[in-house]
């Protein structure tokens, strides 16, 4: 009996692997997510370390960056408070006899570290369903919304930034505020289509994420209008580009907005 090693021909190997590839091509997205979460869970330490190392180039400019960040934080805070005040006034007017619940009263902010970035518009964070994080919840940093939870594992979750081409978030824009869907461009910005030119929108206007049942009970700033010009193809509409209200390229920590959490917050 010589060696009984099974020899498989190259063609057979290629055929098997190709068939396996096609089976995986039509496998449910949940399987891809689970495998990716497993990878990030196993190699969490080197991935987090790598991200911290690579982001040092963003933090090298020192005090100027910190100052700009603080300014942005205060601007976002003021904008959110103004919008909350407006909302509270409206509630008082409409329901003067009823006791109004303050915005974000029952919400908790779950802090989470960014483990790694899948692309320039998706992040993996180390906070999952263990802390009541669910798909669709909003993610904040520097007091402004940056995206939503796209997939959840027990220990981790994936954040789809609003700049991702697959991201669609309902927003309010202009005065008086109109509701539109904002779609990411994949280039650190987003577009708001179908805004008629009769609405007054200008560069620098603030854009707010709309209230969403179970996820957000008060509008929160999401970005600012960086470009607003008549659409080349449809001259009766605006071509609006929105840039994030904070720097989303060098994120190390974010907060998940959990409305009415069933479990205690992390801190």
């Amino acid at each position, binding site marked *: 009996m010589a060696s009984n090693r099974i020899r498989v021909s190259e063609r057979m190997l290629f055929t098997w692997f190709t068939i396996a590839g096609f089976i995986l091509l039509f496998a449910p997205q949940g399987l891809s997510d689970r495998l990716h979460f497993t990878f990030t869970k196993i190699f969490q330490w080197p*991935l987090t370390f790598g991200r911290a190392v690579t982001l040092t180039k963003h933090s090298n400019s020192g005090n100027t960056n910190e100052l700009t960040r603080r300014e942005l934080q205060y601007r976002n805070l003021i904008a959110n408070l103004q919008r909350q005040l407006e909302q509270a006034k409206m509630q008082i007017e409409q329901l003067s006899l009823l006791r109004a619940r303050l915005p974000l009263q029952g919400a908790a902010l779950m802090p989470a570290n960014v483990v790694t970035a899948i692309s320039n518009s998706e992040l993996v964070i180390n906070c999952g369903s263990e802390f009541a994080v669910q798909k669709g919840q909003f993610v904040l940093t520097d007091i402004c919304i940056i995206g939503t939870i796209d997939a959840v594992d027990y220990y981790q979750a994936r954040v789809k930034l609003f700049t991702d081409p697959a991201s669609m978030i309902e927003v309010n824009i202009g005065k008086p505020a109109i509701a539109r869907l904002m779609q990411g461009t*994949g280039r*650190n910005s987003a577009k708001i289509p179908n805004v008629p030119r009769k609405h007054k929108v200008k560069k620098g206007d603030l854009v707010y994420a709309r209230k969403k049942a179970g996820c957000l009970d008060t509008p929160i700033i999401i970005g600012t209008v960086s470009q607003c010009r008549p659409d080349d193809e449809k001259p009766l509409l605006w071509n609006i580009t929105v840039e994030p209200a904070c720097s989303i390229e060098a994120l190390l920590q974010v907060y998940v907005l959990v409305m009415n959490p069933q479990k205690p917050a992390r801190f």
Partner: protein
Amino acid sequence: MRWFRFVVLVVVIAIIQSAFLEKIAFTDQHVKPDLLLTLVVFFSICGVSEAKKARLGGWEFNISEAVITSFAIGFVADVLARSLGPRIISYGLFGTLLAHLHRVVSAKRITYQALIIFITSIFAGALVALLTLVQQKTPATFKLLLWTSIYSAIAGPFFFLPAAWWMRIKTRRFTKF
């Protein structure tokens, strides 16, 4: 093939690809080299077993290892991109094709290696985009694919030497063919 070393190399490259390459990424589209595809090219042109004399004359290579490594790297690339299927098929197909081509063409010079990486990256990227469309997802733009291919072609050949050292592959032996 030293399979344990291969697994360690692929895992290290996967971590570098997903966490460390941001430092050398440029433009707002975060263009960075595709090290996993470079690895596919490396194993397809340097990782094939030693040639034997064919019965009908000429040389015969055993490309089974190149086929396995191409599909395995494709699987890892798919896990990183969290979209199973496109890269397994694409990297596997082009890795196998390259290994077959290695019977007639050898890439000794760094410029040839860069050219092979560029061409493979373009074609493999196009097939990945096509298969991503089949999955009803948004594929990468051609501009991003082009810049990634150029970047991979520039950076890739410099990665061959440490990879060959780690895999204990004598790249010089290919120069005689």
